[in-house]
Every structure is written in structure tokens, then in C-alpha cells.
């Protein structure tokens, strides 16, 4: 396990409620640089909420969150969040591409408009990244013309174009047809191998086992068990983990 | 909660409205501008109407031009703004015009919101136009009946309150006449002079003035309240015109029956100046 001081991401005692329902009941989690951490657990256990607190899309009620030198729990306004978000990219279940922009523009617009990078340089980067996610030739298509899996790979390229230190993956294969899932997972696997820090929320147990360095099992707003995949899947310690794995495997 | 919001909005609307307009000294203003703006009728023979050449002419127009000549030195330093009953007071009080000379009867209600000049004519008030076979001859006989009228006539309230007449008030005169012809009302109440003119037109042979006016009232010009210097100047001009027998001349020019009222005022004006 990564020690606190070396960790790139650090969550401690994070609590979050929506109205009367407490979704996170004290989450603590460290993610080291270059580490790939999978978060698994039954739906409604707060997995996606954890991701959204890390890049400040959801403010927390209580607790400590640090990403690099950013103390996320202390950031109040969107303006203060912006430097953080440039370091933390996110890929969504519903891809959330911009339907009014071509594939290439989707990838290249934010680095130019937000980071102020040179448009020519960003263009080259975007073309390279699209090739990397095996979408060369689709640059001038619109998102609506692509399959779900292709759109999701554009979304990954868009995240990479920001040159982030961390990428958060929020159930990125849940909305995809089975035959397109493979390409997306392959792309993510390549990123992990290259040493990108990743936090993934996923239902793909086999993928979690293969790709991640560590797996966290969440239930009812708590991290019940956290261990390397081999340990967690083969010898779960907590009865709840066992029960869950028995159901999904 | 929409209701609370609505009330809030209306309250703030009311608060936002300060007093707008409010001119201090009209006499100074018009002398600086070099033009007198007068609200007049353009559809009301003989007081103010359009002649065949499309020019504004009439008894009141002559008087207005006379006043302009007195105040500014030329009868042409005048801007004539056509007004109707429903907007003439509004035009005056919001500053669109400086003076109303548009068959304006002197009534206590109006006295509350504007100042009147000296009266220059005494005119008949409302009379009743009805079909020839109508039996009524008194206002009282029309109690509870539908009578066509016009929104903004000064007698509307009196007629409703005192005689219990149910007025069906149209916004435009032609429509009121049509309402009468369609028998939507048993009669039509309007200014006596206009109704008599209407009777002379073709298509109105089956109608008559059934009830005579219940009052005569003096007509005067109107100025904004508290505009002393301007009011005095206008009054002086009117009295001067009366003293010079101008009004009697115009009365003749525009085919009006010679009225005792105007003759008396001319006499009074002369004796006052002596």
C-alpha cells in the first residue's frame, strides 16, 4: 500500500449526504502516482460519488481530499477548482461528448480554450491521440455518427489531450454494447501500462482483476475492503465482499 | 410561489414609478423653443376639423393661432397635435402638449387634475339620439335601458349615477353608431352638436334627437396645474381676442349660430379693459 506522503491522491474521512441520505460515510483512500485503483461494489454504494468528490464536481460535507498540492475540500468556487481540473481528467458513462463539435474539435478544444496551448501543437497532439485510441480517419466525423465504443474512446482521447496527472473512469463501459466494450478496455489497459494514474469505477470484474494494482470494495458508503486484486478476488476477508463476489462472478 | 412573486413585482413596479414629467415654467419653455404645442380636435366641426385640403381649421384652431401670435409673435409658431377625449388630459399632463383646445368642457373632476383657462364658449352637453318612433323625451325615462356611448365622455358617470342608464360604451365613434343601428341599444348618448351633424347625413332619416341636453357647460382651454405665468398669458390673449370681437367673427366664419354667451363675454372684456 502506498504511504500517505507519497500518495498523489489522498482522501480521509470524506462524508457526503444528498438530503437525508448519507451516501459517503467516511471514505479514506490513497492512490499513488502511476497506480491504477478499481472501485467495485453494488450499485448505490457511492462509487461514482467518490470519483466526483476527487475532482470537485461534488463538494463534500466533511473530510479531507488532496490531489497533488490541491486541497480539494478547501476549494469553494468553480474558479478555484479550475487548476485542479486541469490535472484531473474524467471519462463518463454517457461519454458526454459535445455533439456540436467534430471528433477532432472535441479532443482539441479544451487544451486551446482552457489551457491556452498553441492550436497547431494541440491539433497534432489530438491527431496523435486519436491514432492512439485507434480512431485515425474519424477526425472530421461528428460524435453522433460514431458507435458508443468509438465515442467512449474519443472521450478518453479528450481526457488525455489535457495532459492530466490522473484520469477518473466512471463506469465507462456500462452503456456500451458488449462487442464495443473490448476496444475501450484495451485502450485503458494501455494507459495503465504506460504508467498513468487511474481511478476506475467498474462492473467488469475480470478487467478490474487484470488491470488494477489495487481493488477497493465499497458498500453502503464505506470502503469495506481494499487489497491487490489477486487477494481480494481469491481470498476476500469481509463477508460482504464474499457475498457480493458470489453474486457477480 | 407565484402569487407572492406577483404581488412583490407589482409593488416594486409601483415604487419604481416616480413622478415623471412635471415641467416648471411652460411660458419660458415655449419662448425658448419658439413654438406652442396645442392639442386640438380634427374630427369635430365646427371647432376643429380637416378641410378639403387636409388643413386643420375651425373655431378653436383660430383661437389657438391667435394665442400663438400673442405669445410668440406669429400665428404660425404653433404645432397642432390631434387629440381625442380619452387622451387629451394625458397628453397635457405628460408634456406632449402645452395647451388643450379640444372641446374641453369645464367640470369639477377635470378641475382636480388640470387648470382651466377662461371659458370661451358655452356648449350643449349630451343629448340622446334614437329612432323616430321612440317615445321617451326625458332622461329619467331611460332608466335601466341600454344606451350606446363612448368611453371617455365626461357625462358617463353622471348619466349612470343620476339617471340609472346602462351605458354600452364603445371605444370608437363609428362603432357606437353601428351599435345603435344594429339595435344593440335603444338610443345613443353623445355630445349634442355631433349628434345633430350626424342626423344630416344620408342613412339617418329614421332617427331624431329624442332627449335634449340636461345641461350646458362652458368650454375652456386646459393647462397643467400650477403653471401660473403661462395660464395668465393665455387668459390675457383670450380676453384680448374677445374684446376685439374676434370670437364673434369666427362664429360667423364657421356657420355657428350666434350665441349670447360669446357676445356677453365680448362685452365684459371690453368693459374690463376700459
Amino acid at each position, binding site marked *: 500500500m502506498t504511504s500517505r506522503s507519497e500518495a498523489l491522491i489522498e482522501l480521509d474521512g470524506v462524508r457526503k449526504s444528498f438530503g437525508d441520505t448519507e451516501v459517503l460515510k467516511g471514505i479514506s483512500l490513497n492512490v499513488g502516482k502511476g497506480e491504477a485503483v478499481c472501485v467495485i461494489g453494488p450499485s448505490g454504494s457511492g462509487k461514482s460519488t467518490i470519483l466526483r468528490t476527487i*475532482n470537485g*464536481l461534488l463538494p463534500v460535507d466533511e473530510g479531507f481530499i488532496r490531489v497533488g498540492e490541491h486541497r480539494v475540500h478547501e476549494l469553494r468556487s*468553480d*474558479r478555484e*477548482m*479550475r*487548476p485542479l*481540473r*486541469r490535472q*484531473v*481528467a*474524467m471519462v*463518463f458513462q*454517457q461519454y*458526454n*461528448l*459535445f*455533439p*456540436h463539435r467534430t471528433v477532432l474539435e472535441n479532443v482539441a*478544444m*479544451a487544451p486551446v*480554450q*482552457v*489551457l491556452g496551448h498553441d492550436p497547431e501543437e494541440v491539433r497534432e497532439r489530438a491527431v496523435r491521440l486519436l491514432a492512439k485510441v485507434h480512431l485515425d480517419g474519424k477526425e472530421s466525423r461528428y460524435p*453522433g455518427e460514431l458507435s458508443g465504443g468509438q465515442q467512449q474512446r474519443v*472521450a478518453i482521447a*479528450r481526457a488525455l489531450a*489535457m495532459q492530466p496527472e490522473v484520469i477518473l473512469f466512471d463506469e465507462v463501459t456500462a452503456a456500451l454494447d458488449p462487442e464495443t466494450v473490448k476496444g475501450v478496455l484495451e485502450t485503458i489497459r494501455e494507459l495503465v501500462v504506460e504508467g498513468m494514474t487511474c481511478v476506475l469505477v467498474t462492473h467488469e470484474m475480470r478487467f478490474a482483476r487484470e488491470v488494477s494494482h489495487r481493488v477497493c470494495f465499497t458498500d453502503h458508503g464505506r470502503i469495506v475492503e481494499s487489497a491487490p486484486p489477486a487477494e481480494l478476488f481469491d481470498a476476500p476477508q469481509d463477508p460482504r465482499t464474499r457475498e457480493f463476489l458470489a453474486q457477480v462472478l | 410561489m*407565484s402569487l407572492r*412573486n*406577483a404581488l*412583490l*413585482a*407589482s409593488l*416594486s*413596479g409601483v415604487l419604481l*414609478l416616480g413622478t*415623471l*414629467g412635471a415641467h416648471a415654467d411652460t411660458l419660458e419653455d415655449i419662448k425658448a423653443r419658439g413654438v406652442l404645442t396645442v392639442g386640438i380636435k380634427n374630427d369635430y366641426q365646427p371647432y376643429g376639423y380637416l378641410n378639403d385640403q387636409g388643413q386643420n381649421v375651425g373655431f378653436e384652431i383660430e383661437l389657438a393661432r391667435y394665442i400663438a401670435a400673442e405669445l410668440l409673435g406669429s400665428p404660425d409658431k404653433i404645432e397642432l397635435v390631434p387629440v*381625442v377625449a380619452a*387622451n387629451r388630459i*394625458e*397628453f397635457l399632463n*405628460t*408634456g*406632449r402638449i402645452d395647451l388643450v383646445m379640444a372641446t374641453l368642457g369645464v367640470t369639477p373632476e377635470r378641475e382636480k387634475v388640470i387648470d382651466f383657462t377662461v371659458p370661451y364658449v358655452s356648449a350643449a352637453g349630451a343629448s340622446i339620439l334614437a329612432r323616430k318612433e321612440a317615445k321617451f323625451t326625458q332622461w329619467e325615462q331611460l332608466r335601466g335601458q341600454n344606451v350606446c356611448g363612448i368611453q371617455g365622455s365626461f357625462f358617463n358617470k353622471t348619466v349612470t349615477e343620476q339617471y340609472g342608464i346602462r351605458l354600452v360604451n364603445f*371605444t*370608437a*365613434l*363609428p*362603432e357606437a*353608431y*353601428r351599435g345603435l*343601428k344594429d339595435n344593440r341599444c335603444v338610443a345613443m348618448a353623445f355630445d349634442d352638436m355631433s349628434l345633430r351633424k350626424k342626423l344630416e347625413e344620408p342613412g339617418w332619416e329614421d332617427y331624431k334627437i329624442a332627449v335634449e341636453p340636461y345641461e350646458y357647460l362652458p368650454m375652456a382651454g386646459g393647462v397643467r396645474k400650477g403653471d401660473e405665468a403661462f395660464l395668465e398669458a393665455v387668459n390675457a390673449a383670450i380676453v384680448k381676442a374677445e374684446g376685439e370681437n374676434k370670437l364673434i367673427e369666427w362664429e360667423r366664419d364657421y356657420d355657428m349660430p350666434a350665441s349670447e354667451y360669446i357676445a356677453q363675454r365680448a362685452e365684459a372684456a371690453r368693459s374690463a379693459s376700459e
Partner: protein
Amino acid sequence: MVINPSYEQRKRLLLVGILLTVIALVLVDAARGGSAEWSRVIARLPLLLTGSAQGWPITGGFLLNVVMGIASMAIATAVGTLLGLSLLARRRLVRQPAFVVMNFLRNAPWLVVLFAMLYLLPYRLTLLGVTFEFSPLAKAIIGLSLPTAANFAEVIRGAVQSVHAGQWESARSLGYSTAQIYRRVILPQAFRRMIPGWMNLYALLMIATSLATVTGVQEVVTLLRTTLSMESETTLVYFYLAVLAMFFAYCYPIALLARRLENKTKGDSL
């Protein structure tokens, strides 16, 4: 529902048929003595259309309605955009007053707002040494533009809110500021969905310009009412039909186009 492809065509055919029949009836009527009435309408047509018997310049009539409609729409678009964006503001201090104003104007009858403006605005207003003149026409334009602006604000709000929430999330994760998100992501998508609402509103506004008759503006209904005092009773129906047809001929195509666009944009949400 399975639609027989000829169903719509047959329907269209009947509608066109009815239209042609009406025209034919008018022509037959014109040919047989009824023409006296129609010739009166035709004689007055330049007056009703442009307010002057010569047809030029425009001093009133239906073209004045068109002018009023366009001017009011321009004002309403500007004011409504501001109001609509205020409705979406995150600050309560901005959002709530905007909401109150919008609701007030939407719940007030057009006619009453028009009247209120007539008496609320001064004829002459001197602000910082500049004198503004408010003619009855200007007042009518302002009076018509206010309820339109409120309705347009609501159109904008609806269109912006119809953009999927995921767009906000993903733009925010890319580090865009709120202003940038509006400009780069939300408004370009919302814009397409606003257009049908905007056009519908224009058609509504055009119809409402007839209310300006109460302010004494020489628009077509005013002229119609004055004209009728000079014409014989038998022509009454014909004149009314002519003016109703003017409005229909102008507004129906706009409404039709708006609906087409609406159906087209309905499907393109993500």
C-alpha cells in the same frame, strides 16, 4: 402508429382544395354582382396595407404591423436574452428578481401591459442631457416587446435546461469556466432548440400587434375600423375577412416552419 403514406398527402390535397375553392368562390362572387363589395375592399386595400392611399410611404396599415412586430422582436430578443440568462444565474440575488419580473410579465395580459406602457412612459424624457421622444408608436413597440421578452426568457431557459446535465459535468471536468461553458458548449447546442420557440413567439407577437389599435396607432385594425365608418354595412363582412386573411397569410407560414424545425430538433438530444 403505422401511417399510410398517402394519408398525409390526401389531407394536404383536401386543404389545398379548400383554399382553391375559397378563392374560386370569391372570384365567382366577384363575377356575379357581389363584386361591388369586393371592389370596395380592393379600392381600400392600399390604405389597409400601407396606411396611405398611394401605397407609399408606409404611414400605417398592415405593413406598420409588420414593422412593429420586427422592432418589438428585436427589443424582446435582446431583453429576453438578458432576462433568460439571469433566470439561469446561480446567484439568488440575480435569479429571483429575474424570476419575479418574468412571471409578472407573463401573467399580465398583453393588452393591459400595452395600455400601462402608454401611460407609464412619458412623452419626453431627458436623461443625461439626451432627450428621448416616445411617440405612441414607440410606446406600442415597447409595450409589445415586454411580454415577448418574458416569454423568450422562458424559451431560453427551457432550451438551456434541455441540454443534458452530462455536458456540464464533462465541460467542468475539462476545466472550463462557467462563462466558457455557456459560450462554447451549452449555448451552441441550446441555440438550435431556441429557434422554433423564437419563431412561434414572433408569430404570436405579430398577431398581438393588432392590439396596438387601442393606443391609436394607425395599424391595420385601426384603419379597418375607421374605414368601416365610411363604407356601407354590406361590405362589413368582406373587409373583416380581408384583414383576417392578411394576418393568416403572414403568420401561418411562420408557424408552420417553426413546427417543422421543432420536429427536426426534437430528435437530436444526446
